[in-house]
Structure formats: structure tokens, C-alpha cells
């Protein structure tokens, strides 16, 4: 440790001799880092806006779990799986459902979800436009907003009306047979903007009795306490061998897209980093050349090849640290400029279409981005110093001492 501290002090003294050259070299790498920080923060800003918009427009904490097929084996939703899902941390409620279909006498197709009244309340917190909840184990149903409108328009069915639906069964030979069932709507939901709008909801036990189904269930609706925990809960569900779907998939899509966009833009920014790295290589080769005699003398006085390499790399480390800090600073300024100038310009140019963006910053500089920028500068500087350092270490001390 003493050795490294001493070498760090010695290298600092070396660099102080040629401050301007060091500053310009570090500035070269800083421009590259600023470009990377600026571009990534811009990408992150767009990502943040997209995700926030999805969060506002979608029910992120709702997950629909279905069975899956793995290696040719069907993994059904059994009572035990439901119980395991309910025990996952951050799961507020998990309600198993049956999914069947009815048709009206005029052949209007209706998707039916059988869910217990308690689960419906906990998971969907329904708000009624008219009427209320169905009674348990009854033939009462609830219309989704869209379905209510459709039934009224095409079937003349209003909330509270008793009407007949057809349930189609198939015998073991695949021959269909129809059964008729009289059902009555206990209520109609307000518009929600999700899948419930087009569904007919019925008590789970009633659907089970109608369709002669017992477990496995067709799906489980899961309510998570907080959007932050959704992906962790999804991971747990998937580890049970089940599939999970919901609005969070849109976030995954946005993340995938933005990762690709940021990577693509970063490649352009990397070009300036390469130029910065070449500047370091050049500076250090010049530095080694100018100090050939000093390196030879140091070897005569006991420096090993490793000591020489360490001393040269220590100088590169300083350049990297200065370049990284300067690059982060420039990146922050760059991001600020995009926000203050670029945002105003875009809003003026694009008007209402862009007004949603006014709520958020166009760029998002996170500590992770700054740390990444700093580390890239340091690592790149060290890599750039390897060739000059090895060149210095391979000097013949006798020739080096004679060098003028």
C-alpha cells in the first residue's frame, strides 16, 4: 500500500510538470464521456416518460396468470398453485377464475369470467354505473361497460333484465349440444379501460356448476401492492412454471426498445471515446520518449519493469479520473442544455402533440450513469496506457541512460 501511495504521489508530481498537456488529454476523453452520459441520459429520459405514461394509462399492478406448457408438459393452475401465489410477498390478492363463453339467442358471443365476489372486490375494486354485486351461487351477472352497451344495442337487454343465453357443450365424440340458461344482470360497471369492459362477470361457483368444471382454473388474477414490485412477483410466478401477463409487458417492450436505441446511439458516442483513448496513447508514448533517460536511471536505481509499468499506469489513472469527472460534469451540462433549450424548442415546434413531454425532463441523469461514465473513463485510460507502459518497461537501461 505504501508503494502505491508513493507511486501515486510521484506520478502526480510528474503530471504537474505538464499540466496543460494532461488537461487537454483528459479533456479529450471527457468529451467522449460527456457524449455517452448525454446520450444515455436522453435515452433514460425517454424511457422514463414512456414508462410513466404506461403507468398512468394502465393498471400496472394487475397480473393475469395462466397455465403454461413446458417441455411438452401442461402446467395447470391448481388450488396449491393459487395458494403459493397468494403467499408471494407483495401480493395483495390472488383470485382464481374460470373462463367460459356464452352466446345469446341472436348469436352474440359473450366472454364470461367466473370470479368470487370477494376476489372481484379486492382485485378489481369495481365501480358500478348501475346496480351492484351479484349474489353468491346465483345466476346473477355483472356487465362490463362495453358489453352492456353492446347487449343493449343489439339484444335490447338492459341492466336488471332477465335474458337467455346458450351454453354449448360437446360430447365425447365432439358432437355439440346446446343448453339454455336464464341469467339476470345485477349491475353494470363503469368504463375502466381494461379487459373487464368486454366481459360478463359471474360468481365463480356458478360458472363452475354450469360448466361442470372443477380445478384446474383457467387463470388467476393477481393484485400487487406497488408497481415497483410487479417484476419481482412476476419472476416468482414464472418460477412456479406459470405464465404471467399484464400491462407490465408494455414496460418490458419499452425497456427492450430503449436498450436497443441507447446501445445504438452509444456506438456513435463511443467513436469520440476511441479518439480520446488514442490521445492518451499518443500523450503517454510522447511522455515515455521524453523520459527515456529518467526511466533508465530509475531502473539503474532499483526500479523493476513492474515498477515502471505501475508508474506509467498511475499517470493514466489520473488522466482517467480527471477525464471521468470532467466528462460527467460536461454530461450534466449537456443534459441540462437539452432540457432547457431542447425541450422548449420541441414544445414550440410540435405544439399540443408534444405537450405531454412538458411534464417531465427530456433527460434523466442518474447516479448510475455518472458512475458508469467515470468508470469507463478510468478503464479506458488504463487500457490506453498499457502499450506505452510496456514500451517503457522494455527499455534497455543502458541505452535509456545514454538517451539525450
Amino acid at each position, binding site marked *: 500500500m*505504501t508503494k502505491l501511495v508513493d507511486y501515486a504521489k510521484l506520478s502526480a508530481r*510528474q503530471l504537474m510538470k505538464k499540466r496543460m498537456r494532461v488537461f487537454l488529454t483528459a479533456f479529450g476523453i471527457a468529451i467522449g464521456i460527456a457524449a455517452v452520459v448525454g446520450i444515455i441520459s436522453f435515452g433514460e429520459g425517454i424511457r422514463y416518460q414512456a414508462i410513466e405514461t404506461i403507468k398512468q394509462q394502465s393498471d400496472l399492478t394487475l397480473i393475469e396468470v395462466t397455465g403454461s406448457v413446458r417441455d411438452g408438459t401442461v402446467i395447470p393452475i391448481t388450488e396449491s398453485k393459487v395458494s403459493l401465489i397468494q403467499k408471494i410477498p407483495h401480493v395483495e390478492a390472488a383470485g382464481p377464475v374460470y373462463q367460459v363463453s356464452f352466446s345469446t339467442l341472436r348469436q352474440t358471443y359473450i366472454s364470461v369470467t367466473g370470479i368470487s365476489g370477494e376476489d372481484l372486490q379486492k382485485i378489481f375494486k369495481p365501480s358500478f354505473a348501475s346496480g351492484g354485486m351479484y349474489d353468491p351461487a346465483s345466476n346473477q351477472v355483472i356487465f362490463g361497460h362495453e358489453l352492456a352497451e353492446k347487449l343493449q344495442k343489439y339484444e335490447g337487454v338492459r341492466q336488471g333484465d332477465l335474458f337467455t343465453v346458450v351454453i354449448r357443450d360437446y360430447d365425447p365424440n365432439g358432437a355439440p349440444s346446446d343448453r339454455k340458461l336464464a341469467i339476470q344482470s345485477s349491475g353494470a360497471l363503469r368504463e375502466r379501460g381494461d379487459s373487464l369492459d368486454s366481459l360478463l362477470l359471474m360468481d365463480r361457483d356458478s360458472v363452475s356448476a354450469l360448466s361442470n368444471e372443477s380445478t384446474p382454473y383457467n387463470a388467476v388474477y393477481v393484485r400487487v401492492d406497488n408497481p415497483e414490485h410487479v417484476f419481482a412477483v412476476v419472476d416468482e410466478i414464472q418460477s412456479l412454471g406459470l405464465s404471467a401477463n399484464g400491462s407490465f409487458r408494455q414496460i418490458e417492450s419499452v425497456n427492450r426498445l430503449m436498450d436497443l436505441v441507447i446501445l445504438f446511439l452509444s456506438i456513435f458516442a463511443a467513436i469520440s471515446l476511441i479518439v480520446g483513448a488514442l490521445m492518451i496513447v499518443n500523450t503517454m508514448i510522447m511522455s515515455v520518449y521524453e523520459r527515456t533517460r*529518467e526511466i533508465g536511471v*530509475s531502473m*539503474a*536505481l*532499483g526500479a523493476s519493469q513492474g515498477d515502471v509499468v505501475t508508474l506509467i499506469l498511475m499517470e493514466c489513472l489520473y488522466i482517467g479520473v480527471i477525464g471521468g469527472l470532467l466528462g460527467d460534469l460536461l454530461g450534466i451540462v449537456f443534459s441540462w442544455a437539452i432540457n432547457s433549450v431542447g425541450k422548449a424548442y420541441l414544445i414550440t415546434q410540435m405544439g399540443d402533440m408534444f405537450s405531454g413531454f412538458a411534464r417531465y425532463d427530456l433527460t434523466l441523469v442518474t447516479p448510475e450513469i455518472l458512475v458508469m461514465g467515470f468508470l469507463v473513463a478510468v478503464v479506458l485510460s488504463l487500457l490506453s496506457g498499457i502499450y506505452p507502459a510496456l514500451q517503457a518497461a522494455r527499455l534497455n537501461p543502458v541505452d535509456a*541512460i545514454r538517451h539525450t
Partner: protein
Amino acid sequence: MPAIIEADHLKKAYRGDVPALAEATFRIEKGEFVTLIGRSGSGKSTLLNILGCLDSPSSGALTLDGEPVNFRDPSLLVSLRRRKIGFVFQQFNLLPYLTAQENIEYPMLFNYREPEVRARAAQELLTCVGLSNRGHHHPSELSGGEQQRVAIARALINNPPIIFADEPTGNLDQKTSEEIFSLMQSIAREKKTTFFIVTHERDFGEYADRSFQLIDGKVTGA
């Protein structure tokens, strides 16, 4: 008396067969003050570089302080330079961005000694070479003689048993040169350090316990 330097038929030829050192066989005892006198191009520096483990001979063997030198083992050569050898150069070769005291401490960095130990040793040596009040000066603020005194102190910092000096007074006037030789001689007596000094000036032979000559690449008078 045990030999501190034992050269056995050392030879050096560059690029095949251009002889730089034809023959060097001699034995130097601990604490001796030896000069090697020869004209320019006679092979003095070549011999000094081999003895100082900076260059390897084409043939022959070398033993330093009882330790045979394996010229094919770079880590051993570094270790010998750290423990057994100090160098004084004609051009002083002080690092311009370090003070006199820091220059003296410099070889100790490669022995990984604590800063306090280095500073104490450097201050003692500054006193020893008569520069106790010049430790904080940079080389550019020192005269040639003072710089060479600093260089001598730097060569002594690791307390090596052997000091090699290559034309240590080559850049100094007559009076200063005599002072430097006198200083080296007194250090040799006081610290029992062996000095092996290469010079082309015969006058300084009078300071030496023994004086070799290098004529046409061959050491004579050994």
C-alpha cells in the same frame, strides 16, 4: 579479506564479434576505493554496466558480495541493484521535479520503505555530503558540485556495499572534482563502502587504493 567484486574473464562483444570488452579478470575487496582509468571508447562504461548488472557479458562470470550473478534472471538483477549497488552518473541524472531530499529518497521507493524511514535516512546523508540546508532545493537551484553530492547521497541511500561511479567529475571543474573525489574517499573509509570509479583523468588515481587501466578492452593492473 572477502572479495566484494569478483570478475572472472568477463568479455563483451556487440553484434556478433565487435569487441567492447576483451578481458576483465580482477578481484576487489570490501571497502576498497578503486579507479578504472581508460581512454574514451576503451570499454570503461561497458565494464561498469556489466558490473552494475545493467548489461550482460558475452562470456565470463561475476560475483557480487559473494552472490554469483545470473544475468539471465532479470528479477535477480533488479534485486542486486536494489540491495548491493549504488550508481553515480556523469550527468548527475537527478529528477528535476523532485527536491534534493526527495531525489536522495528516490531509490528507497523501490525498496518500499516507509516515508519516515526514507526522510530520516535522506537527511542523514544530506548532512554527510555537506548539504544539510539544501534538502528542499530542486536540482536547478543547485550547482554542479552540489548536484553530484546529492547524486552520491542518492547512491548511498539503500546502504549498498558497492558504489559504481561513471565519470562522476566529467561535468565539473578541477576544484569541485577534487572535492567530490575527496568526499567519495572519506565515505569509503567511514562507511566501508566499496567505490569503483570510472574516469579518464589519471590525476584522480592518487585517491585510489588501487587503480586499474583499461587498454584495448583489457583490464591491466589488477
